[in-house]
């Protein structure tokens, strides 16, 4: 039980570990897409996790437990980072903070569809979900799309959401 508690304490701090790894990688100015840097930080984090696991009685359940906690925390951390990258809510808060207050018209002027879409296109190109060929954007991988259609639409249906904007 004591070794399990040690593992638990380590896992409590695992978001901090992933954050520190992410900071180190970002500070090295590695020329890789931002999503790849996140995955790299997550994967490197498995080395210290493996080390801590070596002190615990390594049953399958303990390994599954550690993997679930570490991966879930890392996933949440990367969502947090992605929010700071592209979330419109955060950008609007940032602009209100910068200027003190904003009128609705000013918010609409700040966020042009072209900027919002362009940023997503760059990210999707980086992730190789789409490709740019002779000025035309094409779907390259159907993985994200399959997840979008199957999982997201299905879960929206389960939760009782009716239309896109709800």
């Amino acid at each position: 039980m004591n070794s399990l508690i040690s593992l638990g304490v380590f896992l409590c701090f695992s978001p901090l570990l992933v954050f520190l790894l992410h900071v180190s990688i970002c500070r090295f100015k590695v020329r890789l897409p931002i999503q790849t840097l996140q995955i790299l930080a997550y994967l490197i984090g498995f080395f210290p996790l493996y080390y801590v696991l070596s002190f615990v009685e390594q049953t399958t359940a303990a390994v599954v437990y550690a993997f679930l906690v570490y991966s879930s925390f890392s996933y949440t951390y990367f969502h947090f980072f992605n929010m700071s990258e592209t979330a419109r809510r955060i950008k609007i808060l940032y602009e209100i903070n910068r200027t003190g207050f904003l009128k609705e018209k000013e918010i609409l002027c700040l966020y042009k569809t072209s900027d919002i879409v362009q940023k997503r296109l760059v990210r999707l190109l980086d992730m190789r979900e789409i490709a740019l060929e002779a000025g035309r954007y094409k779907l390259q991988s159907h993985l994200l799309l399959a997840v979008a259609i199957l999982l997201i639409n299905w879960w929206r249906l389960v939760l009782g959401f009716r239309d896109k904007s709800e």
Partner: protein
Amino acid sequence: MALSLTLAGILSFFGCLLFHVILWRLNRPRNDSGTIFVIFLFIPPIFAVAARFFYPVSFASIFLWYLLHFSLSGAYIATYPVFQAISPSLEILLIMDNYPEGLEAQTLLSYFNDRRLVKERVRDLLNSRLAKKKTDTYHLSPVGFCVIRTFIAYRKILGLGFQTG
């Protein structure tokens, strides 16, 4: 021991998920993000501590169970905005799926509407009490101020600035 803790963590997470689905189908709360926090993060530990009066369970076990429950719940809470409103990235992919020969950026842009993309998010900010409306201007709430200062500090540590868009 690890097996029972792992199972307990997974089961309590799915229990909360079931409760969340039932509640959403009956009457989705206006402040849905806040309610999700209460359902997934605050109610389960109250039940766990109350269970100690009827069943001998150590605080160490509660800690390890809650750690798994908390991490899984955190991952779901972080994903929830994707279900709340279709993200532009996914919308782009769905549009592209209809054009096997590809499409130009201009064609893609014609599918989007400035007002809808931004207005929905402003409404979310008001509902989650991160911003407040005074006559015709939007201001930060104290919580909104703390949230944005955290993000600014966080990006500074990463060596990244804040970009708009």
